[in-house]
């Protein structure tokens, strides 16, 4: 059930950039098809790496849109971010081990509520990022760009270190 909804949501996500009348539409379409197919394969085979590859492909489909469209800011990015998180969460939910929750029937409802909250949070966060970048006037120069790169790499490294520490405990 969750796997089917994840694949359907992925189709919806992939359709948005692939359906745009852009210069690199064949590439976008190809990435969309590959993304949905690999995601479905990952869900069926219970293979996290395939799900990850499918999500990257869906993100790539969206990235192609900017390569073709130039500098116009996409106001639907927060919605796409929320959708991508929804697809990812549902897909990983579907490959979890099947355990009957007979003693806690409210567990599924509780989890759906958390999922909705996470997606809403993702949309808000995406909106903040977009609004912040829209408010920025002009380029920040070499210093700001360097800072941005360092901050991005630092953020990823921090999260990776946290993950490694938890995994070793």
């Amino acid at each position, binding site marked *: 059930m969750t796997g089917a909804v994840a694949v359907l949501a992925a189709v919806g996500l992939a359709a948005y950039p692939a359906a745009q009348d852009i210069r690199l539409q064949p590439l976008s379409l190809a990435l969309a098809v590959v993304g949905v197919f690999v995601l479905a394969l990952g869900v069926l085979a219970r293979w996290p790496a395939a799900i990850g590859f499918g999500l990257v492909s869906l*993100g790539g489909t969206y990235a192609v849109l900017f390569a073709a469209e130039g500098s116009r800011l996409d106001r639907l990015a927060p919605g796409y971010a929320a959708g991508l998180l929804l697809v990812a969460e549902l897909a*990983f939910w579907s490959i979890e081990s099947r355990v009957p929750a007979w003693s806690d029937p409210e567990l599924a409802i509780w989890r759906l509520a958390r999922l909705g909250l996470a997606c809403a949070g993702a949309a808000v966060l995406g909106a903040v990022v977009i609004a912040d970048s829209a408010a920025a006037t002009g380029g920040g120069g070499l210093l700001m760009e360097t800072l941005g790169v360092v901050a991005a790499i630092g953020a990823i490294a921090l999260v990776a270190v946290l*993950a490694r520490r938890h995994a070793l405990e």
Partner: protein
Amino acid sequence: MKRAATGKLRVYLVLAGLGLLAALALGRPELAALAAPFAVFVAIGLAVGRPVEVKAAAELDYERQLEGRLVTVLLEISATEPVERLELLLDLGESLETEAPNPILIRLGRGERRELEFPVRCARWGTYEVGNVVWRARDGFGLLVSEGRTTGGHRLKVYPHGENVQRLLRPLETQAFAGNQVARSRGEGIEFADLRPFVSGDRVRRVNWRATARRGEPWVNETHPERNSDVVLFLDTFAEARRDDLGTLDLSVRAAASLAALYLREKDRVGLVSFGGVLNWLTATSGTTQLYRIVDSLLDAEIALSYAWKDLDVIPPRTLPPRALVVALSPLLDERAVGALIDLRARGFDLAVIELSPYPFVPEGESETEQLAYRLWRLRRDALRTRYASLGVPIVEWREGVPMEAVVEEVRAFRRHARVLRA
């Protein structure tokens, strides 16, 4: 306890990293907007995730139960930290089954103790440790998973269900102690045996006045004394034929438990020899305690593969008392057991063999060669049976579904018409 990152955590990290780097490389904030939720999701998930330890205390309503009956296992689950998704598997092994969902998924709040009830069906006899729980706790974000196993379960003894037997096999000779069996010898007892002339020392109450009046001289009644007997249950554990959840060892354990209970009820002394890869024995004694000893010993019976040659010399002498009836329960699949039984007979033991038929467990085969081999195997077994019969050993086949009573009656019929040979 083992803690590990899930595949989801790795994928989210890769997505966040790729998204942020692509946003920097392409200069597109939309890609940062896509990646940021994944990065924040992972960061929050790791920040709030704590190592968790789950404890499970188990209680059983019965620690001894009969095969096929139910035992209720009550589990009290608690955890050091709140757990969003806790998967629990009550480790029951193959021979116990529960009707409740197992594994199950629950949620534990802070300081919460959850009681779970598992009705467990004891499908097969044996000794089991019940109450050990294998658990897997996932955090609310599904990024980290902790796994562990709780120990300290209770020992559950599942006794084989009894076979219905009314009349028992009687040994040819009895022992010296009082019991319920009418001895062949003559002495003080109730059962009338014969008449004989009065001799000095005979008690007046034993005078048969009718016979005395008819013959004109005093005659007395002779009686058979009531004595007990020694019975040794000889269990062949060298090999068994098995299919799915039933095998010849199961049949022999059921038969042995039933026979032991009945003989002990008749005040006989019962011993046990489990003759196989591992040798177990109990010297013959009477009483309820002995019944528990025998049944507990039967629960430990298992087929242990061994290539070592074993004969009767490995059995301690007191285990096979003289004038004892030896009831052998064997599928007659191993040469060592077959040889040991013939050796028992040669040593003058009163022997009866209950053959636990391996035929229901061995398919005939589909090809012509397989069917030929099957027929040859059956012929060899028939020849072996004839050999036992020619030695004066009653041998009767028993299989699942056939009443034990019929088997015992067949042995009794054989013994009625057989002669005891003495070397």
